[in-house]
């Protein structure tokens, strides 16, 4: 069963979350990345996400398998949007279930950090002033050195 997916349309959060159910689990931690209307002091109107899909999927699966091995979890899932997103849209969803909350919090945090570091997905911000730009992992513009 796949644990990581790219989605070209809205993520079905309810369906994903049901896959976390486990009667042995006492804790569930969910992370949602939403499209913010601002970044580094600039007003953002929309975002485009571009992915190198085959590698993004294999890197994503590798991260999820590593999370299952590193933390005491019952389930871990992640879905990342691609394409054009509006302010408030769900860009990434991560869900984990575990017997205890410590593992659930740590794993969820670890997964989003690894996704941002390793999965080949790029964010292009479109600003209110008409400009746009690709971003670095720390959300600073890549423009100057591309």
């Amino acid at each position, binding site marked *: 069963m796949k644990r990581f997916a790219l989605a070209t349309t809205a993520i079905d959060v309810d369906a994903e979350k049901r896959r976390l159910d486990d009667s042995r689990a006492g804790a569930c931690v969910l992370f949602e990345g939403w499209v913010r209307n601002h970044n580094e002091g600039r007003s953002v109107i929309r975002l485009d996400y571009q992915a*190198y899909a085959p590698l993004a999927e294999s890197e994503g699966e590798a991260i999820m398998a590593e999370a299952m091995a590193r933390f005491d979890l019952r389930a871990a899932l992640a879905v990342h949007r691609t394409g054009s997103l509006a302010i408030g849209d769900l860009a990434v969803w991560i869900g984990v279930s575990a017997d205890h909350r410590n593992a659930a919090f740590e794993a969820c945090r670890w997964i989003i950090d690894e996704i941002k570091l390793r999965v080949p997905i790029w964010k292009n911000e479109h600003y209110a002033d008409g400009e746009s730009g690709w971003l670095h992992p720390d959300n600073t513009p890549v423009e100057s*050195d591309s």
Partner: protein
Amino acid sequence: MNYQLLYFASLADRAGCAGETVQSDATGLSALYDELRVRHGFAMDPARLRVAVNGQIVDWSHALADGDEVVFLPPVSGG
């Protein structure tokens, strides 16, 4: 040799395309990237790029083979 290049994010913008087939005598990734810098004016330091060959992350010392799909990956910014 022929290589299938794919471009993403700022490199795609600079190249003006999402990919192309390149004929090259380069058999190493550094030599191939240097050719592309000249051709497309890529300014990004190779130290900041990862490389994937045929869908797998590889080391810059990886030896290329004819027909390989090669992707120079700018720093990612998903999430």
